[in-house]
């Protein structure tokens, strides 16, 4: 197949332009601004996500410093609220989601034997609007009256009647993030559906590709709902509508229904690609094939479908009818079944495998154990009668940090270690990697595990001050928090060291690894598969 046809296939609208630029590599800043290469864009996404991870992390440090002892020491309560809000927004939309999109950009074309993403120009756009979204969001913190302070869930009327003047900036930044995610998701779907190498049938797709395909459909389904609900907040606040204002015939509880209709699938958007990553790493370091491939695919799909039927488990205390509480409780518990299928499949993959414990595998195993802890506390929260005790306490905070930090973020770390040799062409420093792992895994548990007890003892979330009996445990939690934050600089140092040099990585640095990406040399060439590979 010649170059012209391939380019035409990628983007019919600009065939001529494509050809002109094909071999010209702009250098310096222009390379990054104008790039349509999936690897460049993947790299941009990953660095952006890491910067946001540190930014959101810095806010977490402010929160933990304030909570180090009872009383108000360091920050005003209003600023504290802005920190919890923006920490959540940054970590969800700035750190976890772009990291997964970055991984998708880097890996999906290589995994399915395609030369690039299907829509390279849209790809460039979907990345480059993100920095603007977060600049808008972060700049609102410096406005008079402060930035968003209503929690990342922006419940009405906190975000309408009682919100700061900067709320419009918050709304527009969410709009831009949503557009970026939707464009990214469309690109992923089109790439996977139309660009697979000959012979790459659906049930031969690597699980990372499968999980991302399903994630992309979730994104297309729910990001517009988020855009809709922020638009309603905008018009309620500035244009006199009454979607959520009871005085005008609206209902603030309806906000929660619409928000969580987006919010619960969003939770799975942030974990399904993790399942794909773990399903790649565990077999590689167990030197066995993945146990139960097809059940993994079906489990992922069932989790995605069920995610639309469980949103109201976030709102058990809003006074729902008993029937609805039971319905949402049972549906939520049902999700434990496909999730259990996955966890058991990973364990069965390791069973009698020839295991070795390089850093990616360590992170993957920690993921399996700690994500399961987060899953179990989720099951506890699903039980309606006890949720009345746990609701809005630190138990909830512990739960979602276990699934998002030791779940999503650990899987992203595992992915970074696993594919770094392919990306940079160098092996990373294994000693430094292990140091990063052990520092992280110990500190993260010191940070989040005691939060369960704080919650059970009744400490509410999102408060800058607390009753004196919580002082000791909060101190331990804060120390864990500072240690976890500092540990991430080891990772930064390791990545920089790996980019600059190190032992030359072979095409396939992990002897048990499978997949088309390992047939390419390391570092992967600028254009992945110029001729489609043969898939057996």
């Amino acid at each position, binding site marked *: 197949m010649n170059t012209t046809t*391939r380019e035409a*296939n990628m983007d019919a609208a600009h065939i001529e332009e494509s050809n002109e630029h094909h071999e010209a590599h702009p250098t310096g800043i222009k390379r990054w601004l104008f790039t349509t290469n999936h690897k460049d864009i993947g790299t941009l996404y990953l660095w952006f996500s890491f910067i946001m991870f540190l930014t959101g992390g810095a806010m977490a440090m402010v929160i933990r410093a304030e909570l180090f002892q009872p009383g108000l020491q360091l920050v005003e309560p209003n600023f504290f609220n802005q920190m919890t809000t923006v920490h959540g927004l940054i970590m969800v939309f700035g750190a976890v989601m772009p990291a997964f999109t970055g991984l998708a950009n880097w890996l999906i074309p290589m995994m399915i034997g395609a030369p690039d993403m299907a829509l390279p120009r849209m790809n460039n756009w979907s990345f480059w609007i993100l920095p603007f979204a977060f600049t808008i969001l972060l700049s609102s913190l410096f406005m008079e009256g402060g930035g968003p302070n209503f929690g990342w869930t922006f419940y009405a009327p906190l975000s309408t009647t009682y919100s700061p003047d900067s709320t419009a900036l918050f709304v527009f930044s969410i709009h831009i993030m949503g557009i970026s995610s939707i464009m990214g998701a469309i690109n992923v779907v089109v790439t996977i559906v139309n660009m697979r190498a000959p012979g790459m049938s659906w049930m031969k797709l690597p699980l990372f590709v499968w999980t991302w395909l399903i994630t992309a459909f979730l994104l*297309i389904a729910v990001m*517009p709902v988020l855009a*809709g609900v922020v638009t309603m907040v905008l018009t309620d606040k500035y244009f006199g509508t009454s979607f959520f204002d009871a005085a005008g015939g609206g209902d603030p509880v309806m906000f929660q229904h619409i928000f969580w209709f987006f919010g619960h699938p969003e939770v799975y958007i942030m974990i399904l690609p993790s399942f794909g990553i773990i399903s790649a790493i565990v077999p590689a370091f167990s030197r066995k094939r993945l146990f139960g491939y097809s059940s993994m695919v079906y489990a992922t799909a069932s989790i995605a479908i069920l995610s639309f039927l469980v949103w109201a488990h976030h709102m058990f205390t809003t006074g729902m009818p008993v029937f609805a509480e039971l319905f949402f409780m049972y549906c939520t518990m049902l999700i434990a079944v496909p999730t259990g299928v996955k966890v058991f499949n990973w364990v069965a993959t390791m069973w009698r495998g020839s295991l070795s414990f390089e850093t990616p595998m360590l992170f993957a195993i920690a993921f399996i154990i700690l994500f399961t802890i987060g899953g179990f506390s989720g099951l506890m929260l699903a039980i309606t009668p006890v949720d009345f005790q746990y609701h809005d306490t630190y138990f909830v905070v512990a739960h979602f940090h276990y699934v998002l930090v030791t779940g999503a973020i650990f899987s992203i770390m595992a992915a970074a270690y696993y594919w770094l040799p392919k990306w940079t062409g160098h092996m990373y420093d294994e000693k430094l990697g292990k140091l990063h792992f052990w520092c992280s895994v110990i500190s993260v548990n010191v940070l989040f595990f005691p939060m369960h007890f704080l919650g059970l003892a009744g400490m509410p979330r999102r408060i800058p001050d607390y009753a004196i009996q919580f002082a000791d445990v909060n101190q331990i939690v804060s120390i864990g928090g500072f240690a976890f934050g500092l540990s991430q600089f080891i990772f930064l140092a390791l990545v920089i060291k790996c980019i600059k040099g190190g032992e030359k990585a072979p095409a396939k640095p992990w002897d048990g690894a499978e997949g088309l990406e390992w047939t390419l040399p390391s570092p992967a060439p600028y254009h992945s598969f110029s001729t489609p590979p043969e898939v057996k």
Partner: protein
Amino acid sequence: MSRPSATSNRKLIIWLMTGAIGMFGFGFALVPLYDVLCEQLGINGKTQSTASTYKPMTIDTSRVITVEFMANIQQDMPWEFTPEVKRMQVHPGELVRTNFNAKSLALATTVGQAIPSVSPGQGAAYFNKTECFCFNQQLLAAQSSAALPLIFYVDPDLPDTISTLTLSYTLYNITDKGYVGAVEQGAAK
């Protein structure tokens, strides 16, 4: 599998974009859907927003339902707002009249809108109002007061599990919202 043609890419993009735009619309469609569901199923404590007509019916004197009244005001509402009686015993099917007293403390004309809510939520569908000040916006001149009438009956089909109904009104200040057709209440007492 062959390499994609530009048209197959475009077709898929159009489908996906349509899906995204459709879901944006669905987000807004949830608003009326939510209202209809709440009203039809009588959940969320939402009572009907128009007057129901009372047809003479057998009064079930064997049952006594306690009806409690609550009045809340939003913090920026310069009115005093209280039920005339805090609780009463009624029989299902019996037509009952009571008043809420409103007194404006403001120095200018103010307009209020009362929003009812019935607890337990499952009882809302059985609480019928033939006349209610909450069906209209209420306008009070500065420093004046008024008795706001409420006429209701409890449907005899009310489930046996419910013996107490609490009717709560929250009064909102909508003076700045460009009200239409507010009912002006009588002169100052």
